[in-house]
């Protein structure tokens, strides 16, 4: 019971952290574009403004999908470790839980978007799923390498292995680190892989019929998803965190770096995304796996 409350606390902490970091990054993007950006708490104001608006609904599936999406994401966030010894359910943080529980959130959002009856929403969902097909396979190969090397698939133990026996996996498996970062950009939905939102092409894709509290909840879901994914990347490749200060520093650095790369790139088309991920990232991931598992060269 106490563990569940700790989990809810971690989910809430993740939401607050990510929303602040996202607001801070809007200022960073603004500065890159030679202007002042908004205040760092702008995203909070956006989300709460959305909660106070009265919007429309298209049926029970429209609402039910949003609730399932947010519920799934909060459920996943309860398992996320903050440092290597601060987590709600110790010993049960298996790597595959994160990847697949995020899929429940996506399925809920996809259901509700298609249930609105707008074809643009279904097109957006189709693009999101195709992008997921593209970036997951190289990411899973690198995760396979890491799990095989450390002999465990629990996130905290992988982080502890990086602090002791191996170097950080971004350095020990250099090709793997690059592939992992590219997959992270795909997961976060940042340019150049932002095909599923595409505001000018398909009128913001799945979010076309949302307004008011449903959109607010979807933004909450997006923030918590980003929190889970960045933490996953940190624990897999950058050695986790021993204390909260180190966690915060690494988190802000990873997200800001991804944001800076994304702010100078354009958007790819959807078949270009699939072809991109199945060419060089896949070759790099397979090469890295063969080198690490069979030949045994780990830096």
């Amino acid at each position, binding site marked *: 019971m106490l563990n569940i409350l700790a989990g809810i606390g971690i989910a809430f902490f993740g939401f607050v952290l990510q929303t602040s970091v996202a607001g801070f990054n809007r200022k960073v993007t603004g500065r890159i574009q030679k202007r002042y950006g908004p205040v760092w708490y702008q995203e909070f104001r956006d989300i709460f403004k959305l909660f106070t608006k*009265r919007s429309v609904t298209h049926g029970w599936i429209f609402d039910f999908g949003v609730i399932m999406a947010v519920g799934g994401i909060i459920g996943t966030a309860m398992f996320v470790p903050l440092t290597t010894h601060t987590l709600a359910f110790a010993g049960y943080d298996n790597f595959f839980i994160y990847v697949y529980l995020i899929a429940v959130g996506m399925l809920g959002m996809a*259901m509700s978007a298609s249930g609105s*009856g707008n074809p643009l929403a279904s097109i957006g969902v189709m693009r999101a799923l195709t992008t997921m097909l593209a970036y997951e396979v190289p990411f899973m190969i690198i995760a396979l390498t890491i799990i095989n090397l450390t002999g465990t698939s629990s996130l905290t133990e992988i982080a502890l292995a990086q602090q002791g026996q191996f170097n950080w996996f971004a350095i020990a498996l250099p090709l793997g680190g690059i592939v992992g970062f590219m997959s992270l950009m795909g997961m976060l939905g940042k340019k150049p892989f932002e095909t599923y939102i595409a505001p000018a092409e398909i009128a913001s894709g799945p979010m076309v019929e949302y307004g008011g509290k449903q959109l607010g909840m979807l933004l909450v879901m997006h923030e918590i998803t980003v929190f889970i994914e960045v933490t996953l990347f940190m624990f897999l490749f950058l050695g986790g965190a021993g204390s909260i200060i180190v966690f915060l520093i690494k988190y802000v650095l990873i997200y800001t770096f991804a944001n800076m790369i994304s702010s100078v790139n354009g958007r790819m088309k959807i*078949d270009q995304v699939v072809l991109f991920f199945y060419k060089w990232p896949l070759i790099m991931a397979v090469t890295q796996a063969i080198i690490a598992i069979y030949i045994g060269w780990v830096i």
Partner: protein
Amino acid sequence: MASIELLILFTLFAGILAFFASMIRDILGPVVTILASLFIFISIAYFGYNGELDMSTSIIPFVTFGFSYAGLFFAIIVTFIYSMVSFYNPFFAKKYKSPSVYSMFYLFNLVGIIGVFFTSNFLVLFFFFEFLVWTSFFLISFGKSRKAAISYFGFSSVGGFALLYAIFIMHNAAGTFDINTGLAVVSGTDAILVFILFMISAFSKLGAFPLHIWLPFAHGNAPHHFSPVLSGALVKLGAFVGVMGLLRVSVNTYQIDAIGLDLAHYIIAILGALTIVFGTLMAIRQDDAKKLLAYSSMSHGGYILVALTLGTSLGIAGGLYHVVAHGFSSAAAFLAIAAVSKQTGTTKMSELGGMIHKMPVTYIVYLIAIISMAGIPPMGGFVSKWLIFQAVIDQGLIFVAIAVFFGSIGSFLYVFRPLAALFLGQELPRYKGKIKEAPYFMMLPMVIFSVLIIYTGVFPEFFLDFINNIVVEVGAAPITLSNGVIYILNGTLYPSLIAAAFAVGVVIALIIFLVFPKSRKVDLMDTYTSAEFIYTEELLHYSNNFYAPLERLYEKYINIMENFYIGVSKKVNQLGRVFRYYFFTNKPEITVFWIIILMMALLLGGDLL
């Protein structure tokens, strides 16, 4: 105390009774089917679980039965699916020309099932195997196309004859037809040949690459209430033969040290991986919902194969748990599509849309089934896929892992398409106001399957305990289970905790949702169209060519295997024509040709030899 032999005789008798009952009134035949199949399932499950099945035979000559955990496991799953799907028979009885024959052959199917899984003699196994293929062949031909049934029969005969050849090789080596001695004694090159033949037979029943041509054809054209059985239960026969071939025949070809697998096993794993990839890619293209689910069955058959070839206890447990999870979810998905097709008359996704507003229960059943098929927690598919992933990662097989992960994500893609195109989206005007929810009697098996799918996901220890028995029987170490947590070498999984976290999350989301201001309800056609006024629903429903950008990348390569088989059949045709030209002709020049050859052989025969 239930005797297997009496059960078989009872089923035969019930089949003949259903035939005659249907002649009196149309609906009595299906009723007899439902009652008989329920009785068989309950007796096998109850007595088998308590270990009280009687294997002696006194009435039927030449037939012997033996008990094995694998046989009992498969028999319980398959008879359960048969008995649940039989609830659909009364509603489709009026559509076919001779419903009495349908009920009779449905029950004869069960005869074959019980015989195959509980026998201990190879020839009896072959007899019941062929009996099952023969009766299900008639059932498939009740559907839309006769050619589909013939293609099914052809490919299954290939499997049957390979099995017969393997049986005779083992008889040669062991001297008897007994299953256990035969599998244990065979060794050396004999073992390699037996292994290959068993694999051909398993591939042809599972629908794995390269013997997969019949699967979408037969599934797509079978009658709507037989497809759940065909996909959920009959392909598991191939898994059973696979279990026998892969796990109990000891093959020793070249051992690949780097991954710790035998070369023969590695080739089977690669073929299984190719099955997964092909099934996924073809399923993404389909417009007919049943063909899509048929390709999905092919892909999941590949998962079972890959898991069983690995040979470790994780792999075996993952493969067998996948048999359970896929059987239930595939049967539930096919049942939902059959309910939709009964109400609307079509299963093509480009002609349907917005079914959720009239058939919400069918939608929920389909949703739970596809969550399990895509391998997402908290349903049963996640547990089995997790075991398979860990098994593949343990061995370090990279290329098989690429295919496994690709299939897992790709299954999310193709399984979402009927959801968005068929159930969600705009309501088409030709169905508005005319569609009702499926009748309660049809909803009953769908709801039971949904509850079971959730149960296998949240409390996996019931089935895993049983599977541990099979793992021990085959000769590997059992999986550690305690209090609902699965402990393996690489990690732990606590499925009930995942489900509990999900439930807590949903409660929090519901609270947030209810606190803030209420939304007003608008019609589906009142949507963002850049302020254009719209009045045709068909133009606003996105269902055709759903994954067009992805399909464009590979649509040039899809016909390779079909063209290969068509080429093979053309070559056989040409060979036959050559024979006919030389041996079965009444042309005088050929006769002269043979007379010359004969005279040359007689005159010069002594010198040439």
